[in-house]
Structure formats: structure tokens, C-alpha cells
């Protein structure tokens, strides 16, 4: 585009500019010739009329006309000097006088009509050009023909010089113009090439590339919108990448979760088939096959729970907090007793708007995790309180705790605080993922705080009791 514009503009300019020069040259040339002709005709007329008077005078004195012609024409010989004029007088096609030794006249110019009209022409001989005027003297001297030859070589040379000068100047102007035009177009098209370069970079994956924004014109505005677009693209790519990474992490973890029980199940089945000989051996192997199958089953159920929760709407009812806590304590009392862990609860508000089954699952998960963290002789506290008007439920334990790095990831599916992903504590690794989803569907927020060796606090904060807003938020989240 840039080069096309450049070439088109340049061609148009050169064409019109040179056309102008040509027109000027032609006009100047015509003018030069015209003036030479006018001048020649004037002189011719002047000399002819003077000569005619002289002829009358000579004849009046009765002197022979032919012999006195040289003396009559003598005064005009000055013209032959620096004026480049040659005079010739013919009598019936014979030269009777010339102020120059060389005078050549084409024959046609001597055969003129006798009505006093004159012939004007440009005569070229060798490298010289002249204006030739020939005319008969009026009767009774119409035997005489006066030829006036005006050399215009110098005039043409001057014109040629001027023409050359014009073209030379034109060339310089054209070069300057081309240079200027190129600069202008470069400046005009620079943002465009910058945009295309930046787009290419963005397309190649450098999403943080931006256009420089300067000035206050249309291009600045465009650069700003372009940058805005680039930023949006970068954000979305980032989100996609994060989502893909999370999904990949989920799949990797899921594969690992499946692989370990499957290895065990296959291995023990093979053991029964090929190695086991006593009933004891077989019982031993089948016990492991069953427990590992149950683990797979648990993973399947939890995944199903997650899927169901994603699709189904929650049923909100007013739930008594005391009832909720009691249910959780009952569900886990056996396990707590086995570990000799004490579970206590505290209520600072009475009821909560939530899906009671889901909230039960969430709290059981919290307390279950706390039980795993506590080991023997721990203490777990469930507290319901108002925090800046927001209903908050917290489960606190005095177990082994974890570092901040783990806290960021604990709601990810299959994430294990322990690098080795041991199952000594049991579970499918989906509990907190489920909790997160339950919290999301209630429009509530989950937070965890922990310190290694000091215990962990798991908190769910419900939005302020504005039902409409709450419903809307929940709807958006679903």
C-alpha cells in the first residue's frame, strides 16, 4: 500500500510537472519565433517603404535605378553586423544587392503574387536557423523582390538553454519531492507497520506486547483500542491456560488415584491365582482387594457428588444451627471416641438459611479433616458467630496444621498436603473440593488459616442477609 501510494503519487506529480515544463517550453519557443517574425516583418516593411521612396526620388532625378541600388541600400548594411540580418534585393530572380557574401534563398520565395503580400518562413541551413521574409516591392517596381533574413540561432540557443535549465530544475525538484513524499508516507504508515508487527508478535504467543501510545490523534485512539484488545486476549489466554492446567492436574491426579488401587487389586488377584496356597493367604489378599475396591468406589461417589452438585439447584431452608452441629457430632462421634478426640460447639446465632444436607456434608468434611489432623487426644471446636453482620461458621482444631503453600491448593481435587499422597488418613482427596462447591452454591466464602504444629481453622462466611442479593449471586454462580 505504501509503495503503491508512493509510486502513484510520484508518477502523477512527475507527469503533471513535466507536462507543465513542456508546455512552458513550447510556449516560450513559439513566442521567440513569433517575436522574431514580427520584428523581421516590421524591418522588412520599414526598409521596403524607405527603398520605395528612394526609388521614386532616384527616378525623379532620372538616374539609372539599378546602378544606384547599392548606394541606396548601403545605409542598411549596419544591420548585417551584430544584428545578424542579411538583406538581399532581387530583380527578376537575380540578385542585384546583398550585404552579405552568402545569401541563399529558396526559389519559391521569389515567385510571389504581385499583390504586395509577403512570405514568412523559417529557414534552416546547416546548424543555423533564420527567419526569412520576402516580398515584392509595389508596382511599378514589382520586378524587385526584397529578401530579409534574420538569424535566430542565438535566440533558439537561449531558448534551448532555458529549456534545459527548466528540465534540470525539474529533476532536482522531482528528487526532492520524491524524498519528501517518501518521508511523509513513512511517517503516515509507520503506525500501520507497527500494528502489523505487534499483531504478529501477539499471534506468535508474545501476549504482553503493546503498541506505544503517544499524541492525541485518531492513531492514538486506535493504538489504545488495540492495546485494550491485546490485554483482553492476554487475560483470556491466561484464564484458558490456568483452566487447562487445572484440568490437566485433575486428570494427572485422577490417573494416579486410580493407578494405586488398581495396581493393588491386580497384584492381589494375581497373587491368589498364582501364589496363594493356604486359606489364610487368600483371605489376606481378598481383604486388600476389597478395601482398595472400596476406595475406588468412594472416589466414584465423590465425583458423582461433585457432578450432581454442579447440576442441581440447592434447597434453601431455615436451619437451626444447634441441630446442624448435633448432627455432625453424632455422625463422627464413633471416630472421635476411637481417637479420643473431644468435639465441642458454640452458637452465637440461632438459624441459618442454607441447604441442610449440603451444610451437613460440608461440616462433616471439615470435622473429618480436623480428626485426621489431630491424631490422639485432640480437641475440635465448632463455632457459629456473627462477623461484621455476616454469619460465619468455623471449625478449629489443635492438630498438626500445614504451611501456607498447601493452604492455597487444598480445595483442588486430589490435592494432598503430603507429597507422597499417602492414604494413611484415608479419603479420596475430594472432600474439600466438594466443600468449595457447596460454599460456592450458597454464595459463601471458604477460608483456611493454619500454622504447622498449631492447628487449622476452616471457616465458611455467608453473605449478609439480603435475600434478593443472595439469590441473585447464587443464581450467577450456578
Amino acid at each position: 500500500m505504501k509503495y503503491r501510494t508512493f509510486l502513484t503519487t510520484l508518477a502523477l506529480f512527475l507527469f503533471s510537472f513535466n507536462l507543465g515544463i513542456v508546455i512552458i517550453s513550447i510556449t516560450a519557443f513559439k513566442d521567440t519565433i513569433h517575436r522574431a517574425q514580427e520584428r523581421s516583418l516590421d524591418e522588412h516593411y520599414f526598409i521596403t517603404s524607405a527603398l520605395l521612396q528612394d526609388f521614386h526620388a532616384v527616378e525623379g532625378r532620372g538616374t539609372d535605378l539599378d546602378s544606384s541600388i547599392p548606394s541606396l541600400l548601403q545605409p542598411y548594411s549596419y544591420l548585417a553586423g551584430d544584428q545578424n540580418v542579411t538583406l538581399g534585393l532581387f530583380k527578376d530572380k537575380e540578385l542585384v544587392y546583398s550585404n552579405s557574401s552568402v545569401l541563399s534563398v529558396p526559389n519559391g520565395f521569389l515567385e510571389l503574387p504581385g499583390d504586395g503580400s509577403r512570405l514568412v518562413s523559417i529557414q534552416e541551413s546547416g546548424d543555423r536557423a533564420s527567419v526569412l521574409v520576402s516580398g515584392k516591392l509595389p508596382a511599378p517596381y514589382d520586378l524587385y523582390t526584397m529578401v530579409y533574413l534574420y538569424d535566430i540561432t542565438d535566440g533558439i540557443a537561449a531558448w534551448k538553454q532555458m529549456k534545459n535549465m527548466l528540465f534540470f530544475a525539474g529533476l532536482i525538484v522531482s528528487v526532492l519531492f520524491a524524498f519528501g513524499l517518501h518521508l511523509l508516507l513513512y511517517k503516515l504508515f509507520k503506525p500501520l507497520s507497527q500494528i502489523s508487527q505487534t499483531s504478529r508478535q501477539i499471534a506468535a504467543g508474545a501476549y504482553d506486547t503493546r503498541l506505544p501510545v503517544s499524541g492525541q490523534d485518531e492513531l492514538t485512539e486506535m493504538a489504545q483500542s488495540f492495546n485494550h484488545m491485546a490485554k483482553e486476549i492476554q487475560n483470556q489466554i491466561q484464564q484458558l491456560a490456568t483452566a487447562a492446567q487445572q484440568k490437566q492436574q485433575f486428570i494427572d491426579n485422577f490417573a494416579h488415584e486410580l493407578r494405586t488401587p488398581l495396581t493393588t487389586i491386580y497384584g492381589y488377584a494375581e497373587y491368589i491365582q498364582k501364589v496363594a496356597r493356604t486359606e489364610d493367604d487368600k483371605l489376606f489378599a481378598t481383604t486388600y482387594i476389597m478395601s482398595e475396591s472400596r476406595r475406588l468406589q468412594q472416589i466414584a461417589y465423590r465425583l458423582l457428588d461433585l457432578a450432581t452438585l454442579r447440576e442441581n439447584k440447592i434447597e434453601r431452608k431455615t436451619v437451626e444451627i444447634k441441630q446442624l452441629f448435633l448432627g455432625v457430632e453424632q455422625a463422627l462421634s464413633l471416630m472421635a471416641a476411637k481417637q479420643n478426640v473431644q468435639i465441642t460447639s458454640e452458637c452465637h446465632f440461632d438459624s441459618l438459611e442454607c441447604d441442610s444436607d449440603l451444610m451437613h456434608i460440608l461440616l462433616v468434611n471439615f470435622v473429618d479433616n480436623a480428626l485426621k489432623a489431630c491424631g490422639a487426644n485432640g480437641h475440635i471446636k465448632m463455632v457459629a458467630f456473627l462477623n461484621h453482620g455476616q454469619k460465619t461458621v468455623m471449625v478449629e482444631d489443635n492438630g498438626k496444621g500445614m504451611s501456607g503453600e498447601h493452604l492455597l491448593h487444598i480445595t483442588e481435587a486430589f490435592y494432598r498436603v503430603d507429597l507422597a499422597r499417602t492414604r494413611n488418613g484415608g479419603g479420596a482427596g475430594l472432600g474439600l473440593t466438594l466443600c468449595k462447591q457447596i460454599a460456592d452454591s450458597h454464595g459463601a466464602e471458604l477460608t483456611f488459616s493454619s500454622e504447622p504444629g498449631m492447628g487449622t481453622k476452616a471457616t465458611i462466611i455467608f453473605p449478609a442477609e439480603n435475600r434478593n442479593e443472595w439469590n441473585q449471586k447464587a443464581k450467577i454462580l450456578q
Partner: protein
Amino acid sequence: MATILIVEDEIPINELIKRNLQAVGHTCISVLDGSAAIHELSQREIDLVLLDIMLPEMDGYEIFRQIRGTPAIFLTAKSSLSDKVKGLTLGADDYLVKPFEMLELLARIDAVLRRTKKTSKTFELDGVKIDFESRQLFLHDHPVEYTPKEFDLLEVLVNNRNIALSREKLLELAWGYDYVGDTRTVDVHIQKLRKKLDMDSRIKTVYKMGYRLEV
């Protein structure tokens, strides 16, 4: 046979490996983490370590760096090429990805032990004596005539003793992958071995499975 240390935090898998290795005559020690593994290695002579990579606190690579000198096979769920390369460049003798077949593990253990000269060169049972190095068979100190395939088959049975081997597996292990033959070849050779070595009660037919040398 050899003394093998199993370092694996998944108790069922640890137990499974231990039972299988004990069946073929190895002495096994099971530990669940790195510090216990290092403790065991300092306490007694260990011929081979089976190391899981994902372990609590100290990972398999780290344990391997600390037990330099003892042959080791990595057992892991990590199957990526970079993990394998990392394991092998560290100097591990082999690398096995879960889930694996027990026979493969046994074969690899045998291969490593052969390289490190820890395999027993002779095997004795009920008056039968097998010298693997000179490939000689004795029954009550009298040399026994045998064909090369019979000896190969016997060697496979001894190396995987107490494990039932299907006829196909026996063909594959004793005759080789490319052997195209009837599984009845195996039956014929087994009959001959039983007769020559008086091992009717030892080489058992496992119902619908194959054969097992019971020790």
C-alpha cells in the same frame, strides 16, 4: 537367595511385593519411609533396594543418593520419560512403572542380582542338585541326562518357585518369544522333568493354570 529392602509407603503394595518375593525365596524387609530405609541399610547387609519415588518427607531420589553402593530398582507411578531418565542417570539399576506384573518385577530383580553376582549358583531340593553355572543336574549325587530345553524350563521353574506359571508363560520364558509351538510341548517337558528328577510331588499342576514348583 538375596536380602531385599522394600521402600514403599502404600502398605498394600508393600505387603504384596514382600509376599511375592518371599514366595520365590528372597528375604524381605519392608519399610514405609526414607529414614527407616537408611536405618535398615546401616543395620544389615542388603543386596537390593526396591524404591518408590513418591514417599513422605524424603523422596526416592534423595534416599538413593544417600544409599549409594546398594543396587536399586525404582518402582513408581511416574511414567514420564524425564522421570525415567532421571532415575537411570542417577545410577539406578532399573526402573519399573506401576502397575507392573509381578513376574516382570521378579525377572528384573533376577537380572540385577545376576549382574551384581548375588544369585545363588546352585539349588538343592529333595536330593536334586542343580548347578546353574556348569549346567549340571544331579539326583542323589548321580548326574542326570537332560536336553537343553529341559534345563531351561527347570531354571525358569526354580527362579519363579512357588508361583504358578501358565503354559504360555513357560513357553515364553524358556523357549523365547519367537517360539511357535504347541503348549503341549510344555506338558511333555514337564512330564520328563518329573520322571527324571523324581519331582512328581514338587512340580504341581495348577488347575486350569499351568505348573508350579512348590518348595
